[in-house]
């Protein structure tokens, strides 16, 4: 599984799944064949790859030839407390271009907030080949987890959580 760089989208998978993947990997020695991993977890290969790709985007794991391998950052996240883990992910999200761009966009807006519609347009602009709604979902859930972004679904307002 080779990918060139990280300007790409973020797979819309649960944070708990990604964290579960790194814990599992750690409990089996930090390295595993991807097919074997899917097998022992009774997961579909496609789903497994999606979670691995999300973990890879966050630099928690690496995927050299058919294997998934823990990165030092992943090991740090596994060992961290619930609270520290959120801070580590917060730092990491700041390095991901999509999050960086959304953040810069909010920085310019009044009150550091924007409507969902505006954010969707911004996403479509940054990633023209991706499903913007999907990306929005991923940004909201990772953003909330890391306390980087907030979102109010009643008013459909997206904002900088600070």
């Amino acid at each position: 599984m080779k990918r060139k760089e990280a300007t790409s989208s973020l797979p819309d998978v649960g944070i708990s799944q990604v964290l579960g993947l790194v814990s599992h990997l750690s409990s089996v020695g930090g390295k595993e064949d991807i097919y074997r991993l899917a097998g022992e977890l009774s997961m579909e290969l496609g789903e497994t790859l999606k979670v691995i790709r999300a973990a890879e985007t966050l630099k928690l794991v690496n995927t050299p030839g058919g294997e998934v391998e823990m990165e030092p950052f992943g090991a740090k996240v596994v060992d961290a407390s619930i609270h520290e883990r959120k801070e580590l992910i917060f730092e990491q999200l700041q390095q991901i271009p999509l999050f960086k761009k959304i953040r810069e966009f909010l920085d310019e807006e009044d009150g550091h907030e924007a409507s969902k519609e505006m954010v969707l347009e911004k996403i479509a602009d940054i990633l023209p080949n991706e499903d913007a709604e999907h990306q929005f979902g991923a940004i909201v859930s990772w953003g909330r987890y890391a306390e980087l972004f907030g979102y109010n679904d009643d008013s459909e307002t997206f904002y900088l959580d600070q």
Partner: protein
Amino acid sequence: MTPQPEIIIDVENVSKKFLLPQGEVTILEDIQLQAQEGEFIVIVGPSGAGKSTLLRMMNGLVIPSAGRILFRGKPTRGINMETAMVFQNFGLLPWLTVLQNVELGLENRVKELDRRRERAQKYIGKVGLDGYEEAYPRELSGGMKQRVGLARALAVEPTLLLMDEPFSSLDVLSSINLRNELLDIWSDRDNVVNTVVLVTHIIEEAVELADRIVILGSRPGRIAGNIRVNIPRPRQKRDPLFLEYVDEVFSLLA
């Protein structure tokens, strides 16, 4: 001399019968079970063995047909306000936000709104849900929903936390993550909750979590074994000792 840990809950020779169309059926027979302060007990048994019924008797929702349940040495009567329950299907109200769902469990316990909010916030933080306060359950993954369920139960600051298959509606990776976080929270000694009784039908889950595993056979549900798990944490699933315990529980269940 170190003092003996207090016995938090003592299930003494408890049986439960239900009246079914075909007549009276004994679901649980002569159950004896104790949880000491600080203990993590896992009850494992097949579907229909009476695990949920046993937990409901521990919190006073169901009354034993015979025997009695003592809480800190005293016979219990009615709903036990010193327990809190986490459910398989989260038990969240969809029209309330995360914060409101957590506060809901406190309505009968903390009078002032400010203190209720403060308490809810504290436990939302403990389970790692800061940032989700105004989210609705529909916006959350299963793993996040169950963190809300856990925060709501912890916010009550119960002496005894009861968990009824709390991970079984989650996907496999999320359940791995939540089991780890639950152990983190439980082993944090500042925390108010340190005594847990959790029910599962998954043997590996029992061996991973428990200080002691209580095995419930079925029809009628009787205690088929009581095993202390002497493996330091964190436990590794491929450790031969881990696998020995899995085999032992399996053979007692079969």
